């Protein structure tokens, strides 16, 4: 069969318009929803009902929107963690493990306890937990950074292996030393170690009762601003981007790649660790087995969909927060996993539009 038209890919010579990445990302998400709908239909589900459920369960009221934001909070920080590392073409797939180590280290403040919880002011306890969380994540980021810098070991595999190690490490402490009467969790933290929530203000403002949004979201937004400043306004950010885009040129320019590599991995780990701290101090209030439904992995998709832009990370995180909230109740349970995979695939496929112009050309009629 001969079609009278053919598709040709033409390499872009000029820069693509500024709005194009946002449009392709949005388009990718829509196409991914459609494909997932088709899969759902094939296995006998009702896509439209699920879609309607998705919106009412995530954006339908202030209370459920607050749930969505609570899930978006760790995603913002984890997404930033991935974005920073990816800017330097460092494939940190270990945000999940760094998240768990952040949670573990910040729990130490309460469980050991590191300070007298009766007398220490709340803001010092919280600040100490934040610092410990970031240290925990940074240590888990330092290991692959150091191994890559020193021995050229592939960071993808190392960060992944460290994810599993962090999980078992946490499990040991919550099953053994700090188990709450044999349950697979630590006892609930004292109130002083809880991040303030909007519902705490319910006495003064009726509207806030039952709203679980906590201070962690502010950490996320401040982190986004700081990361944006580092990447776009500071000299260090310039170095990070140069090493990522053209390591050869960076080496000739005399940049210290080894140092930057380790520092960026530690920064990335610290952000993921902070997410872990915010989750246990703001939501679960104890260390337990399943504190993350795969935030670390979703963070990779968030960063990529946001095209590594710190502010776009916030917006994309809200969408994925909604996916997590709805995913808890949508059957079959793997559906939100599948949707995430398709979204990421669509995003990277659509990148071809940024490099090429695609045109439909009429073939010349042969005699």
């Amino acid at each position, binding site marked *: 069969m001969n079609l009278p038209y053919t598709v040709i890919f033409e390499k872009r010579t000029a820069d693509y318009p500024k709005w194009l990445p946002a449009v392709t990302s949005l388009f990718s998400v829509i196409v991914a929803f459609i494909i997932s709908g088709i899969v759902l239909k094939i296995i006998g589900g009702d896509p439209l009902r699920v879609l309607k459920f998705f919106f009412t369960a995530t954006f339908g009221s202030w209370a459920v929107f607050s749930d969505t934001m609570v899930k978006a909070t760790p995603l913002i920080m984890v997404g930033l963690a991935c974005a920073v590392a990816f800017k330097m073409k460092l494939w940190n797939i270990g945000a999940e493990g760094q998240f768990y180590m952040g949670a573990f280290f910040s729990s130490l403040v309460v469980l050991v306890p590191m300070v007298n919880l009766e007398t220490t002011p709340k803001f010092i306890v919280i600040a100490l937990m934040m610092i410990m969380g970031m240290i925990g994540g940074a240590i888990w980021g330092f290991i692959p950074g150091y191994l890559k810098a020193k021995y050229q070991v592939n960071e993808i595999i190392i960060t992944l*292996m460290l994810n599993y190690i962090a999980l078992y*490490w946490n499990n040991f402490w919550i099953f053994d030393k700090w188990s709450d009467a044999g349950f697979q969790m630590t006892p609930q933290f004292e109130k002083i170690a809880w991040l303030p929530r909007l519902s705490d203000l319910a006495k003064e403002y009726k509207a806030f009762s039952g709203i679980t949004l906590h201070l962690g979201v502010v950490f996320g937004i401040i982190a986004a601003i700081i990361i944006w400043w580092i990447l776009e306004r500071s000299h260090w950010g310039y170095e990070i981007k140069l090493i990522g885009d053209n390591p050869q040129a960076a080496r000739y320019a005399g940049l210290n790649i080894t140092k930057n590599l380790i520092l960026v991995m530690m920064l990335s780990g610290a952000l993921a660790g902070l997410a872990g701290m915010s989750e246990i101090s703001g939501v679960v209030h104890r260390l337990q087995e399943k504190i993350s439904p795969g935030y670390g992995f979703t963070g990779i998709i968030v960063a990529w969909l946001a095209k590594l832009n710190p502010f776009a990370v916030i917006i994309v995180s809200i969408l994925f927060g909604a996916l997590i909230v709805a995913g808890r109740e949508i059957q079959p349970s*793997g*559906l939100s996993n*599948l949707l*995430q995979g398709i979204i990421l*695939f669509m995003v990277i496929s659509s990148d071809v539009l940024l*490099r090429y112009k695609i045109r439909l050309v009429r073939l010349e009629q042969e005699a």
Partner: protein
Amino acid sequence: MNIEIILHAGLATGTILLFAAIGEIFAERSGILNLGVEGMMLLGAMAGFSTSLATGNAWVGLIVAMLAGGILSLAHGLVTIHFQADQVVSGLSLTFLGTGLALVLGEGLTGQHPPTIPIVDIPLLSQIPFLGPVLFSEHSLLVYVGYIFAPMAAYYVYKTRPGMHLRAVGEKPSAADTLGISVYGVRYFYTFVGGMLAGLAGATISLSVSPGWYSTQTTSGQGWIAVGLVIFAQWNPIRAAFGGYLFGMLRRFILDLQGPALLFGFANPLYVNSNYGFFLQMMPFVLTIIALVWGSRAATKKRLGAPAALGVPYIRGERGL
């Protein structure tokens, strides 16, 4: 703790890693880094399991598992070969996609018992003292397939003409192109082969080594270990096979450490407090890290390394490799 049991079990679980790692070697030798092994394995495990359940024939299940893995890998092929997308991110999304598909389609399979791949003794060879019971008896047929497959793969890569083309495309695609080898064709083909072998590895779990469907626990990170093993094996199928077996044996040994009450005449801490078992469960992942560091150092010393064009898209007429 019995040395024969450890070696025997190591060969069985090592076969999983053998198939997955050799598949990845084929793909990487052609220049395509496919990090989606875990996803393809999980999809293969699910597809093989459910097909065996539906048809009552484990071999049909095995074939469908391979096709499932292969077809899924073509998504990675399309995006990285034609669209020149980043291979790392594409491979990761393949893992998400494979995992998601396997979980959605595998809903309700847990607890079923389909036919599995038969377990057989090799006549005569199984009579050899010590080696017989370890190597040639009570193994799934797939383990024996693995024995033959690894040397065949090595022979193919190093000694045959198509194998040479494969290596040429991975090392210097522009040179291969001038010789009239289709770079895209070769890359699609071996991406597909890699996917099929990952699917086979998955079905080796669900239909043979530890039959059953336990959602993501079925593969529990073995696909990632296989990707690490490829680097450790320096892209050599024989080394990958030995690495896989060694890994399987160490794993079994570590698990068996929990059994005895006394260890070298001392009270076994693992026996006294079973929670120390979490540290044992960490070991496969710690070992992978150690193997990788060790392998990377050896590779740098001997100037051995990844195929030169690994991860680099090929665009005809553009300067590059």
